[in-house]
């Protein structure tokens, strides 16, 4: 019997709690999953992947995954790969920041205007990647 075609992309943010870029990664992910590509994307907690939650591991192994990391440490990308997930694409908030030099997100707990704008821009990039992955 043929394997079921993968029809969802799982977007996994790092959600780093110590930096604004972690908050941006989280917000960008929600924007993709709840709005831009609702219905064809899912998200899950990075902590569940790292701690080896069986249900979560099956999710990342059976679907194309997109990691959205705040900073160059790339906790999401590295740990999805380590867990044996199908890491199809990887984004870093700092790269979107480099493309939009005028934005300076400062606030961590609640995103300020620059942080929200950065999240929206990144979400668009992730959404395009979702389309590309689901076409394959």
């Amino acid at each position: 019997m043929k394997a079921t075609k993968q029809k969802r992309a799982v977007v996994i943010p790092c959600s780093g709690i110590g930096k604004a870029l972690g908050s941006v990664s989280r917000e960008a992910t929600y924007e993709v999953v709840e709005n831009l590509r609702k219905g064809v994307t899912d998200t899950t907690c990075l902590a569940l992947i790292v701690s080896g939650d069986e249900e979560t591991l099956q999710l990342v192994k059976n679907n194309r995954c997109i990691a959205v990391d705040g900073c160059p440490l790339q906790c999401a990308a590295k740990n999805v790969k380590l867990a044996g997930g199908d890491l199809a694409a990887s984004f870093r908030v700092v790269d979107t920041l480099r493309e939009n030099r005028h934005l300076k997100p400062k606030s961590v707990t609640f995103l300020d205007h620059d942080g929200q704008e950065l999240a929206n821009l990144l979400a668009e990039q992730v959404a395009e990647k979702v389309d590309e992955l689901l076409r394959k």
Partner: protein
Amino acid sequence: MVDLPEKKVGVISCSGEGCVEGTISRVATRLVLEKVRPEETVTICLPLFLAGGGEERAFAKYYPTITVDGCDKLCAKVGTERYSGKPAGSIVVTDLTKSPGCFRVRSPRKLDSKSLALAEKVAERIALEVDEVLEHRR
């Protein structure tokens, strides 16, 4: 010889994207760090801690920790026990939302006024735990 700071507590929170309680955990922890107990607390980034982040693990090894979990998967508590030791305190947000008078909220992304109020309550709970831990360390 590395100097170790005194009277600090590490707060290890989940940020679980799957449920609003994860957002509440995150916001509550940030409120404690920024406003409620800024001098006494340090946040430990959970995924970095679980994955072996040096600074995270080193801090949790020598200093007391309080875990804040959104749900009964207890990622923060279980992870801390595995890599550092039993946390000095542990809070589970879903335990609080089931309490009479607390609200069940829906959107995991943005907190409305009720869920913000809940986050503040959780922050107060964390602060009490912090005070208790530091009191025992005197």
